[in-house]
Each structure stands twice: as structure tokens, then as C-alpha cells.
């Protein structure tokens, strides 16, 4: 137990943990909303995130982000953010259409929907990981070299945002990127929360989560609502992918797996189906991981997340804030 390390660098570990936690929270949003509406673990949501990271990377490569700086770099990054959001949203919609809707229509058992999601997750991850082969079939691997290179692991983002400032406040080292990540993630969460709470569509989503049949009788189109749910989850996963790439700069075809499991953990931690719970759960998980890896060594980082999950579920089985996408006040 390395208490000195933790106490001497307490603020740094807190901020680093919050930044990771914010990313978990954004991904968790997709899990929690789909679960709230369909009572379904959207196992393939991790792949939605992963495609976002690659979309971000390709946009930066295509627009020559490595040489750009100043305003141009910011413009490129903005384009990358939009691309990541669009890509993730598109993947989420396709997923809903191909892997879920046929099953929901037939009222299939929930375990089967999970299996379908696992299958979809494998397919999406492998398509990304084998894209150099697929391009090879069409004889395009030379033309598309920038995009298919590093099919399994890709770090073209490294050094693009190299000289991001680092502030020193009362001897505390603060990376600007961490601040950006936390603030933008929390801002996005607030926007979505208010959207679900106040807009007509949000009311429809909440109604469907409460009781799909009654909601349909009241004029809420269930299929449309489910689509919107996937869309919002996908958009947020895109934002998460953008922020993740800013911070980590490397992505893999299976990067989504561990992050997805963590994000789902965050969703359960906060109370699944509960948007504010997802934010809280994500931040708590991120910070706990950060402190834990300081105390026990980084090898134990992932263990801490799961132990925390088990412990919290034992004492508070509905998560920190309880489950409530449907129960939220109108």
C-alpha cells in the first residue's frame, strides 16, 4: 500500500480519475438508456464507441492534423468530433436495425437478445480489425493505405495535440486536456439530462421506459422512440470516443471491450436506467480506479473497478442513485 504516492499527488490522481470517469460516464449513458427502455444489456455498445475512435482518427489523418496548429488544428478537431459522433450514431442505428429490432418484434427471450448483441459486437470489431484484408479484396489497400494501415492497433493520433498546455496551480500539475474532457463530458451529460427531462421526445422515452404498451396507446411510437434512444447513446459514445482519443491517442480494434465493461459497471454503479446515476457512477468509478492504482499499483487498476462494483451492489443493489429512467418526474 503506497500511501505516500497517493497523498503527495492527491490532486493529480483526482483529476486524472475524473477525466477517465467522465469518459466512462458518456459511454455509460448509452448502456443506461437502452437498458431503461428495453431492459437489455446492449453488449455491442462498446463497438459503437470503438468506431467513433477510428472515425476521429481518420478525420484527423485526412485533414492533415499532424502538421496543423492553432486555429486550423481546432477546426480539424471540431470536424473530427462531428465525424466521431456521426459514425457512432450511424453504427448504433444499424445495430438497432439489424441486431435488435427483429428480436424485439418476435418477443424473443432477453438472453437471446444478449447473444445477438455479442454476435454483433464480434462482427463489428473483426470488420474493423480486418479492414486491411477487406480493402485487399477490392485492390484498394494502396489507395486507402492511410486508413487501413494499423488495422489492429493504431496510434496515428500520437503527437497531434502535442503541445497542449500544462498548468501549475499551487504546485499541482494540471493537463488542459483533462480539464477539457471533464468539462465537456459533464456539459454533454447535462444537455442530455435536460433533453430527456424537458423535451417532448424525452417524455416519450421516459414513458416508453415505464410502460411501452401504455405509452404506445398514448400516441408514442415505440419503434421511433427506441431508435432515438440508440441515436442519443451513439452520439454520446462519439463524444466519448473523441475525448478518449484526445487523452489516450491510441486505439485498437478491441479497445471498446474493456471500456465497455467499465462503462456498464459505471451505469450499474449509479443505478441503471438513471442518467444522473451514469454520471455519478462514471466519476466515482474513475476516481476510485485512480486512487486504487496509486495505492496498490497500476496492475490492480481493473480489479479495483470490479471489486467496487461487487461491494456496492451488495450494500445497495439498485446502485447509488436507484433506477429511474421511467420514474423520473415529468
Amino acid at each position: 500500500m503506497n500511501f505516500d504516492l497517493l497523498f503527495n499527488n492527491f490532486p493529480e490522481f483526482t483529476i486524472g480519475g475524473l477525466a477517465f470517469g467522465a469518459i466512462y460516464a458518456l459511454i455509460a449513458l448509452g448502456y443506461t438508456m437502452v437498458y431503461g427502455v428495453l431492459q437489455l444489456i446492449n453488449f455491442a455498445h462498446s463497438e459503437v464507441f470503438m468506431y467513433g475512435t477510428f472515425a476521429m482518427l481518420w478525420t484527423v489523418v485526412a485533414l492533415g492534423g499532424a502538421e496543423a496548429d492553432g486555429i486550423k488544428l481546432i477546426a480539424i478537431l471540431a470536424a473530427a468530433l462531428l465525424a466521431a459522433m456521426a459514425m457512432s450514431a450511424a453504427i448504433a442505428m444499424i445495430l438497432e436495425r439489424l441486431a435488435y429490432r427483429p428480436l424485439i418484434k418476435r418477443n424473443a427471450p432477453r438472453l437471446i437478445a444478449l447473444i445477438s448483441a455479442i454476435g454483433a459486437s464480434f462482427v463489428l470489431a473483426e470488420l474493423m480489425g480486418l479492414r486491411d484484408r477487406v480493402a485487399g479484396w477490392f485492390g484498394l489497400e494502396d489507395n486507402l493505405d492511410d486508413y487501413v494501415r494499423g488495422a489492429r492497433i493504431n496510434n496515428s493520433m500520437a503527437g497531434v495535440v502535442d503541445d497542449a498546455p500544462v498548468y501549475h496551480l499551487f504546485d499541482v500539475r494540471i493537463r488542459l486536456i483533462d480539464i477539457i474532457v471533464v468539462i465537456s463530458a459533464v456539459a454533454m451529460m447535462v444537455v442530455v439530462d435536460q433533453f430527456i427531462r424537458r423535451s417532448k421526445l424525452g417524455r416519450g422515452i421516459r414513458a416508453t421506459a415505464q410502460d411501452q404498451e401504455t405509452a404506445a396507446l398514448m400516441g408514442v411510437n415505440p419503434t421511433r422512440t427506441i431508435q432515438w434512444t440508440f441515436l442519443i447513446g451513439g452520439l454520446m459514445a462519439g463524444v466519448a470516443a473523441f475525448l478518449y482519443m484526445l487523452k489516450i491517442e491510441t486505439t485498437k480494434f478491441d479497445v471498446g471491450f474493456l471500456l465497455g465493461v467499465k462503462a456498464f459497471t459505471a451505469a450499474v454503479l449509479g443505478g441503471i436506467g438513471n442518467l444522473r446515476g451514469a454520471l455519478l457512477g462514471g466519476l466515482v468509478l474513475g476516481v476510485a480506479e485512480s486512487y486504487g492504482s496509486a495505492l496498490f499499483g497500476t496492475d490492480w487498476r481493473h480489479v479495483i473497478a470490479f471489486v467496487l462494483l461487487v461491494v456496492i451492489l451488495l450494500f445497495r443493489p439498485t446502485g447509488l442513485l436507484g433506477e429511474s429512467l421511467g420514474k423520473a418526474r415529468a
Partner: protein
Amino acid sequence: MNPMTKVKALPKPVKILLWVALALLAYALPLLEPPFISTPGVDFGGVLFTVTVYCLVALGLNIVVGYAGLLDLGYVGFYAIGAYTAAILTSFHASWPLLLSIPAAVAITMLSGILLGWPTLRVRGDYLAIVTLGFGEIIRLSAVNIEWLGDARGISDIARPPSLGGEEGLFEIPHLLWADGTVLLDTQDTTKFLVFGVLDQIPYYWLGLTVVLLVLLADYLIKNSRVGRAWEATREDEDAAELMGVPTFRFKLLAFATGAFIGGLAGALYASRQSFINPQSFLLIYSILFLAAVVVGGQGNRWGVLVGAFLVAYLPERFREFSEFRVLVFGLALMALAALRPEGLFPPRRTVRAKQVEHELEELETGSEEEVARG
């Protein structure tokens, strides 16, 4: 007419003969090396051994998922505990004989199942899934990080089962050689009975198959007992079962422990055959493959589950030349299966009957389709 009903109508001695013949065929399969079925480029006996391990795991997981209805996404954790216990007791920290370490491995795995189940079986179904998933990862990551467990390098020189008749075995059994439409006895290629060596995997397959048959028998007896009925009642409606006097928590715990027992057994066998294990052998993906085996075959039906285990373990080995694409194809197959046969390839008879009854009830309630059409 369903072929199964025809088999059922046969007189009992004929049925028993049929089963014995089937079992003998299963034992002889690696010696026959039938074309198309045997795996090119990979040792057929080894592949068949893997199949038996998957069958064991699938039978164990079927008790948890299929009979008791508890979604377990971390089953590989039990498998790992069994394998590691066997490895530690026979090689790393002690030098027990394998036959003594297997009961120990199974007991420890069962204990871990109870320790995990005691607090977690009280939480709801989906949470159970994620808690078990976490458990599987905790086990693996602990194995990676703890030096006493051999950390990432793993453990080697795990004991093999004792051979009969020394180095040369009691006698040698020739394999068949299939060449251009003729079948020959290949006296160059023989299996020594019963030597558990490095090269010939077939004795391990026989061992595995024997264990599978024993577990199948136990499974049959448990399923048709008070315990099996209690599991089913708990799965269908926990509150109703509790009201009828079934102590559901205790039976769920029993299902968990039984599942862990079989998982640990499979893990110990696997470790012994492999003679080397490291945490890479117990990735989360295996939990998912195990679950896929159960669901593909038809959860709750022991024969369906065996078929599922066979498909999941065998197909990737048979089609190794497409090895790069096998995960992709596997994913597509899972999606197709979910869309086309949501109850699995071989749903248990009970599910089929329940569906029929449900359909009839619906007709009674809403009127048959023609009546609706007539308006």
C-alpha cells in the same frame, strides 16, 4: 414423424444397445479418423479433447443458466480456479499426484462458487450477470498480478494422469487410414492403451469423454429429482416457488455450486492435458464462448447443449484455414441464430410445449385467425 419419437417407441433393450453403440462410436472416433470430420493440420485427438472439455463446461453452465435461470457471464472464473488449483498442487507449490489434486480442485472451486453466490445471488438477474462477469475478470487479473500464482508467465509441468502399463501401455490400437476410397489399418500410427504422454492426445479424449458421460448421468439424475424441479420452479417464477415452500435462495446457491463443481473439474482436466497454463487461457471471451455454446444448443436441454459445445469447440478448429475470419463468422452465426431460432437449435421439450399452450390460449382469447379475418 420426428425420428426421436420413433427411437422412443423401441423396446428398452434395443434402446440400451443403441446408446451403447453410440458411446462406443464416440470412443472410437479419433481412431477412425473419418474424412471430412477429422481436422486437417491439427491433431484430431487434441481437438476432440477440447470438445469434451467444452461439453463439460457447457453441461455445468447449463445447470446454472438453463435449469436455474441465473445468467452467469464469468463462468471462466470457476474453470480457472479448477485449473490453477490443479496446477499449484501438482507442480508449483506441491507435488501431489493428479488424481488427488482433482478432488481438491473441485472442492475449492465449489467453495468459491458458494462464496461468490452467497452474497450475489440475492441481487437481480442482470446485476448477477455483471457481477459474475466482474468475478471472472478478478480471478484472471489476480492470477496475472500475484506472484504466488505464477503471474503472467503461468505455471508449467502440471502433472499428467497416471498411465496404465508403463511407458509402452498394455496394448496398441491401430488407427484407420483413409486413402482413395479404401480403408486400411495403419499399423504405423497406433495409440498405446493407456499412456498419457505428450504427443498422443487420444487417451486424454477418452478420459474426458468418460467424465462427460458420468456428468451426463449425474445431470439426468439431478434434473429428474426434487432439486431439478425446484430449479425449474425458481426459474419460472421465483415468488410463486417461494410461496409453494421452495427455499429458492438455497436452491440457487446449490445450482451455482454444482455449476462451479463441473467447471472446476473441466479446468483441472484442461490444465493436466495442457501441462502449462497462464492467465491468457482464461480470458473473458471464453466465458462468452461457453455461454454461446449453451444458448446455441438450446439452454435447458442437455443434448442440445452438447451439440452447442461441439459446434463452438470444433468448427473453428475444422476451418482453421480461415482462422483469421473465424471470429467474424462466429459473430455472424450468433446473430443469425438469434434471429432465426431464438430458442436455440434444440430447445427443451418443455419450452416447445409451453409455446404451443401459449399459442392455444391466445387463440382462445382473441379468436382463431380465420375468425379475426371474418371480423
